[in-house]
């Protein structure tokens, strides 16, 4: 039992060290933004897929924004992927198609498997451009975003591109403010550090792009995946393609405003991530492919992020057990475990990463909310652990994963 506990403490310390490394790199290291200066080019044709399932609250905002972005006329086609919506999403899309002839080609999906990956997979029959951008319907791209996300595809090593997500409904309540901090740490520090260090920046499935030939090479969208973005990241990596992160390609999104929605969201992410870990973890670390050693190590650690929640809970239980059994003088180990557990799993962006991110973003006072992250941490660790347990029981019972769409909070237009 004691050796299991030591192992858990060791793994948590590895994650903590990784977070420190990322933070210090972001503050003092060489920053890679190789493609952001490409402002003039013979821009390639691009297809923008907008994933939408019952999005009447938000779909008009993104279509409006896409119709005003700066991209050469005739080179951008928007395909709203209306996945079995039962609200007014279809009517809103069709109105835009009428208003902007030739610029929007709707894909109204009325049946088939549920989930974003399945909908995107079906929509691919309409796509014939080498560069594809993907947005969820609650995002609002700025005027220069399309060019910024297309620019990395001039690099033939790049298979996927990820931009930065910025919450727009920060002001709503404590949850949105915590999610704003979490996103800030996750993107401003975590993702950019992985970009700087040539590790594994993660494709986020929105404010993102993928190269058609790379997608075809890896077998297209995986409709069985709960997190098609994580799945895509690893399949690209295993096939010799890179995913790059563009920190300055920022896009507003709406974050959950109530805890049940947040819990559902993070549970889906955890299940999808764990699914990817089971599918690609071993192969990534030890298999024969083109990923570098540092990509193998970081990619494996990234895959294990959500598995760390139940592992930490087990660690806590073991620490208490060995303490009361008087097995060994473990005070130091318990202290390290407690400290690193918070540091390594503060909603997946450790608190020092968030503090550094707030500094890099030039936001001063919101960092004082940092102590409240313990609340988000507590919710996450139990939700993610619950997701893992549910996933294990699904494995035993053979139950199928099902897709939970994230609820929107914007007022209906």
């Amino acid at each position, binding site marked *: 039992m004691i050796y299991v506990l030591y192992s858990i403490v060791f793994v948590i310390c590895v994650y903590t060290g990784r977070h420190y490394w990322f933070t210090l790199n972001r503050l003092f290291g060489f920053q890679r933004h190789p493609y952001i200066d490409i402002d003039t080019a013979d821009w390639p044709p691009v297809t923008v897929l907008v994933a939408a399932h019952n999005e009447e609250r938000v779909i008009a905002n993104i279509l409006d924004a896409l119709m005003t972005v700066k991209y050469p006329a005739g080179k951008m086609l928007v395909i709203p992927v209306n996945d079995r919506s039962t609200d007014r999403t279809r009517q809103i899309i069709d109105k835009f198609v009428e208003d902007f002839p030739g610029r929007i080609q709707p894909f109204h999906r009325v049946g088939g498997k549920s989930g974003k990956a399945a909908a995107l997979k079906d929509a691919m029959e309409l796509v014939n451009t080498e560069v594809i951008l993907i947005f969820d319907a609650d995002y609002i791209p700025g005027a*220069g975003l399309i060019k910024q996300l297309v620019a990395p595809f*001039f690099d033939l090593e790049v298979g996927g591109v990820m931009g930065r997500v910025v919450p727009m409904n920060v002001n709503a309540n404590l949850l949105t403010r915590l999610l704003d901090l979490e996103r800030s740490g996750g993107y401003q520090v975590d993702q950019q550090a992985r970009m700087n260090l040539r590790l594994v920046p993660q494709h986020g499935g929105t404010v993102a792009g993928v190269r058609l030939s790379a997608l075809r090479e890896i077998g297209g969208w995986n409709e069985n995946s709960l997190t098609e973005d994580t799945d895509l990241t690893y399949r690209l990596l295993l096939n010799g393609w890179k995913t790059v992160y563009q920190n300055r390609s920022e896009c507003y999104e709406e974050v959950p405003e109530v805890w049940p929605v947040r819990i559902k969201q993070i549970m889906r992410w955890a299940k999808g991530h764990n699914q990817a870990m089971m599918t690609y973890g071993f192969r990534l670390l030890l298999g024969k492919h083109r990923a570098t050693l540092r990509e193998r190590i970081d990619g494996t650690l990234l895959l294990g992020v959500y598995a760390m929640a139940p592992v930490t809970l087990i660690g806590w239980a073991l620490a208490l057990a060995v303490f009361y059994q008087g097995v060994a003088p473990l005070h130091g180990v318990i202290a390290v475990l407690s400290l690193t557990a918070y540091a390594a799993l503060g909603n997946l962006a450790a608190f020092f990463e968030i503090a550094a991110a707030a500094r890099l973003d030039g936001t001063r006072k919101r960092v004082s*909310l940092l102590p409240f992250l313990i609340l988000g941490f507590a919710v996450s660790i139990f939700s993610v652990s619950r997701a893992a347990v549910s996933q294990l029981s699904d494995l035993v019972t053979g139950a199928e994963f099902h897709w939970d769409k994230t609820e929107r909070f914007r007022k209906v237009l």
Partner: protein
Amino acid sequence: MNHFLAVAVLVCTVGLLFMLPLLPAFVELRRKSDALPLSVVQQNAGEIRHFANSFRDYIKGLEPIMQGCVAAGTFGTGILPDGEEYVVLGRLDEPLVRALGQRDATHAVVIAVGTDLIAPPHATFSKDIYAGANFQGGEKNNYRAILGEKDVHLGASSRVMRWVHAVGEFTADSSCSLFGRISSDSLIRLHANCSFLRLNAPRIEVGHAVNREQGLPDSGIPSNAGVLPRFLHDGDFEVHAGQIISSNIVIRGRLLLRSGVRICGSVKSLDDMVLEDGVSVEGSLIGAKKLSIGPHCTIHGPVVAERELAIAAGTRCGTWEHPTTVSAPSIEAEEGVLVFGTLWARERGQVVAGP
């Protein structure tokens, strides 16, 4: 002391101490003093002419005064709505112009001229300058920003701190230091030893570049060939002189393209990359470290080096019809280099005297 009271005091004290770090958090949660979304400028498309366009709008109110001064041959002074002092010049032989000519003078006023403006040498202009026609700057001047509705010419060893936009041609004599953004709607020409950061124009000549508009010989690849295959190689790689490669190349090591090589796709190297004399690349050229482009090369797509970029004389990047971007933290371009589009040195760009 009563034991119960002592325990209660202890619990309260510990509780308060525990809550103390949360105090700023509660204050911020209640006051919402920093609760706005992170500022993402939705209309910002990275347009290099952004400041010039804003300044043109800003100075629009002075247009009637400028026209009046030109017609009457006088000058006018005043205060702009934001409190900045301005001087509007109507003709070039005024006492004010002569005052501008004082050696080592500093002029902390916005200067607007409806006609040509000739700035005397050895002067510092710490506010923006608007020239309704041509702008001709003397040597060793310091400028904050210049907007010229026709050509802008800077004398030798001048410095620009923020931006210049010329509707006509922009030329900088030798040893100018151009910090910030320099743009032109027709041509930028920099002479030897000029330093620069961000340049954008339909045509950028480093020194006197000769346009080699002749097309490349037929590669034998049909124009409807679609997406070219990707050749991925781990380790160093060399393409022999005169070879024609009809694929995209990704090399995870050093790459050497010998003289006369022609790549009908794009090229990427994860280490240093060297292009010898007369290499042509029809797609992009991306180097993760140092990229050295030899003389008389032709690159059609974007050129990006993550560390250093050296471009030798006679090389052309982009075409008039298909402008492109050449970008690196540090760029050294020999006189005789021609770029159509953007030349962007994030940290340091330098014109090097030709061979």
